[in-house]
């Protein structure tokens, strides 16, 4: 459950005290989300999804150019992957896994482990979107060459230390501002994205001079203009930044700036400190079912140097479903109520 970082701690602590707390902070996602995960996981469900969905229509087209001559990135794409952001230390400096390691990784996908004692657990493997196109890479990060995130700046260290200290203190948020942006249904996968257990899906639309990316995760839309317009004014910050694009040959190059001071990107845990960051993403359609997607993040407040990662997009079936997150965020009530109960117990035990 690496995607969910500190969340298992939270569920075990809060869940034990307050039984109605949802299993995961992401329990808020709608039933439609659940149906979607199912359709991606079993062959029979896939067949029925195909029958009722516009998937075939929206699947990436074989033609690689739009009628007006731009490279055609349109269709439905998954950014789920088994490739970790950072190279596991055990792999040493190897850039690719061996066949044997790949087989082990695949086999592990079908094994459910019971939760630890006292932990109410989470979804089992069946529900998770683990990625369709196994890459042999040992890390998404290709630069620095060791496949690891660059060293943190002093401010980056302070951000990580503050978060770790708060988690060690029992994950008892005083209010919603101490929770993460995804707990609040503000943003999650981010720009550039890192996948999580589900809804790792884009639909890309194009019109002359405009590329739109609908991210299924918290229904975020990126409108990327390629008409040469500049970024929005520097005093306008946005949770998912402001993106402008240009075509370099067959590659869509997108620059994103104007991040919100509290924007959290998942490199590797949800960190803030990206308000001065610049991300450059490159999308290149390599065949009917693959977009070579890579990005460089320069976040001088957090990391001592830029890093570059590769995260191929694989064609998948649609449709995308509505990820109504805030609308069903019972978790927020459960988490805060649980935290207040823990406060009361702590106060009692001090007497």
């Amino acid at each position, binding site marked *: 459950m690496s995607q969910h970082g500190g969340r298992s701690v939270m569920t075990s602590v809060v869940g034990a005290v307050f039984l109605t707390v949802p299993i995961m902070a992401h329990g808020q996602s709608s039933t*439609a989300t659940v149906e979607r995960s199912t359709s991606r996981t079993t062959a029979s469900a896939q067949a029925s999804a195909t029958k009722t969905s516009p998937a075939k*229509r*929206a699947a990436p087209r074989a033609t690689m150019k739009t009628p007006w001559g731009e490279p055609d990135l349109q269709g439905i794409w998954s950014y789920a992957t088994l490739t970790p952001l950072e190279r596991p230390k055990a792999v040493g400096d190897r850039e690719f896994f061996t066949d044997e390691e790949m087989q082990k990784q695949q086999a592990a996908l079908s094994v459910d482990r019971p939760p630890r004692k006292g932990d109410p657990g989470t979804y089992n493997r069946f529900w998770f979107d683990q990625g369709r196109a196994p890459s042999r890479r040992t890390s998404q990060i290709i630069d620095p060459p060791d496949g690891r995130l660059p060293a943190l700046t002093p401010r980056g260290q302070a951000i990580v230390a503050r978060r770790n200290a708060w988690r060690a203190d029992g994950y008892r948020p005083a209010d919603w501002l101490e929770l993460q942006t995804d707990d*609040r249904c503000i943003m999650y996968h981010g720009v550039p994205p890192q996948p999580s257990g589900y809804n790792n899906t884009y639909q890309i639309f194009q019109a002359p001079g405009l590329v739109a990316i609908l991210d299924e995760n918290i*229904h975020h839309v990126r409108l990327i203009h390629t008409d040469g*317009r500049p970024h929005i004014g520097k005093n306008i910050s946005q949770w998912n930044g402001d993106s402008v694009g240009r075509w370099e040959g067959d590659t869509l190059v997108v620059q994103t700036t104007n991040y919100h001071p509290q924007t959290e990107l998942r490199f590797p845990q949800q960190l803030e400190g990206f308000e001065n960051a610049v991300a450059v993403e490159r999308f290149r359609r390599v065949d009917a079912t693959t977009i070579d997607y890579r990005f460089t993040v320069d976040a001088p407040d957090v990391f001592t140097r830029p890093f570059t990662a590769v995260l191929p997009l694989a064609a998948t079936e649609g449709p995308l479903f509505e990820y*109504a997150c805030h609308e069903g965020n019972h978790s927020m009530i459960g988490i805060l109520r649980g935290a207040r109960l823990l406060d009361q117990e702590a106060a009692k035990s001090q007497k």
Partner: protein
Amino acid sequence: MRGRTGVALCARVAVAVAIATAVAAGQGQGVGDRIPRTREGKPDLTGTWQAINTANWDIQDHPARRGPVLELGAAFSVPAGAGVVEGNDIPYQPWALKQKQENAKNWTALDPEVKCYLPGIPRATYQPYPFQIVQTPTDILMAYEFANASRVIYMSSRAESPSEFWMGWSRGRWEGDTLVVDVTGFTDKTWFDRAGNFHSNELHVVERYTPTSRYHLSYEATIEDPKVFTRPWKMRMPLYRRMEPRVRPLEYICVEFVEELMYGHLKRK
């Protein structure tokens, strides 16, 4: 010298008049007003659009009145407005009319807009924020500024809605120059306006987007809901193309503005 200049000037004027006449005859409104079209010959609706009316306050005729926050006085009171409902009356069933009146009385407590919930259709169209249409032959994206809402209109699928959605399940088709969108699969949790006008999960909306110039769409929504209304009814309004050179819907992820309201009672004191 003088004679030659005069002839040249006359010739230029004649050419200019000829061009103006040709434009007027050919287009009726002039070149700038021609409806943009896609390569397939359909109207091209791609762009940033916005309604300019008071329908989000109340889709029916309404007088000006004081707003709900005393301190905000004239700055956030309710402007008068001519309604957008055809014939002005909404054919509520008797129980539903009472419910509408209750909703209106308890507006701020009950209106899903106050909580930053996805606004549903047709309300998203006439909230006071821009929205972006990105048109392709197979799927049309509508991305709204409010709550970062969006929906995809499937032009090539007749599949029924597989679930209930805040923004509904949209299937589109072209009837001449009109984009007709059939929307079903709604929840019963969205409203039409701040005046308590509401619907059930049997809401069925048929929207018609017809370009009347490069800068205008005629928007019509037929509302049908057998649980709430006695017959179908219509609302109608123009939508305007936003003309600022770099216009785009910005982020309005309003969750952060409602957390104190929704969760304030659970903060550590």
